[in-house]
């Protein structure tokens, strides 16, 4: 039986709301998409900062450094874009769900230490990136109306696919 991190499932559930028929009929707007993408990036930065506080494993720490650096760069780019487009990111059920679940996961991770923390953090990174990459591919990118926002999401997806491969490789080494 495969271990599936609980927050990975929760995030999958929160993002799955985007793809339900009811939501699909009313696709997310650009301000909502911007908020969801920014929120997902911010969640991953916070998780990485927790890993940098708690982990002693050099590979896990290097991965966490990568997550902070890349997600911060993408979020800075997103902020600059919404400012340029004069768009105000709009909080919505999906981004609220993501934040609530991330807070629960953070509390879970906080109770762990050593190798148990490393494994839980990296497994969650695999699940989180799988879910977010899937949502970008199937819902957020196709729904984006503005060309520049769509372009940034596409570039983000390329970066995050690399993160998923890196996290999967790391997870296989921690077993």
């Amino acid at each position, binding site marked *: 039986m495969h271990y599936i991190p609980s927050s990975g499932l929760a995030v999958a559930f929160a993002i799955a709301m985007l793809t339900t028929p009811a939501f699909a009929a009313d696709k997310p707007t650009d301000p909502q998409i911007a908020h969801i993408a920014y929120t997902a990036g911010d969640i991953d930065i916070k998780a990485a900062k927790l890993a940098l506080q708690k982990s002693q494993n050099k590979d896990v720490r*290097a991965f966490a450094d*990568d997550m902070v*650096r*890349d997600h911060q*760069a*993408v979020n800075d*780019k997103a902020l600059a874009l919404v400012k340029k487009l004069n768009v105000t990111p709009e909080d919505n059920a999906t981004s609220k769900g993501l934040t609530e679940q991330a807070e629960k996961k953070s509390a879970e991770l906080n109770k762990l230490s050593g190798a148990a923390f490393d494994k839980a953090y990296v497994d969650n990174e695999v699940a989180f990136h799988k879910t977010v990459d899937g949502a970008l591919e199937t819902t957020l990118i196709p729904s984006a109306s503005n060309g520049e926002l769509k372009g940034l999401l596409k*570039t983000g997806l*390329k*970066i995050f696919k*690399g993160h998923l*491969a*890196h996290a999967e*490789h790391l997870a296989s080494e921690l077993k």
Partner: protein
Amino acid sequence: MRTAIYCAVILALLPMAAVRVATAGEIVRVQINDMAFSPGEITIKPGDTVEWVNNDFVDHTATAKDGGWDVVIGAGKSARLQFDHVGTTHYFCRFHPDMTGTVQVVGK
């Protein structure tokens, strides 16, 4: 008289030119676009310099798989490394390990 002056100037500049030719190899550029090195494989001569130009908005590195060298290329910036010895080195980006490339240095 004027010809003599020209000759003197040329003679005075010659050693500088000779030094330049001896030390300056070609600069071969590798572009980084959308999380990939392009071209992924390059062939250069000893003394040539590789310049990686990072057009992405995230930082990258060019890091030899054998641990021989490690170049950080900031977002929107470029970085250079001179190769003096013949050989083939496979490299990757430490920050994004699925990004890979090869530098092949062949004799003149």
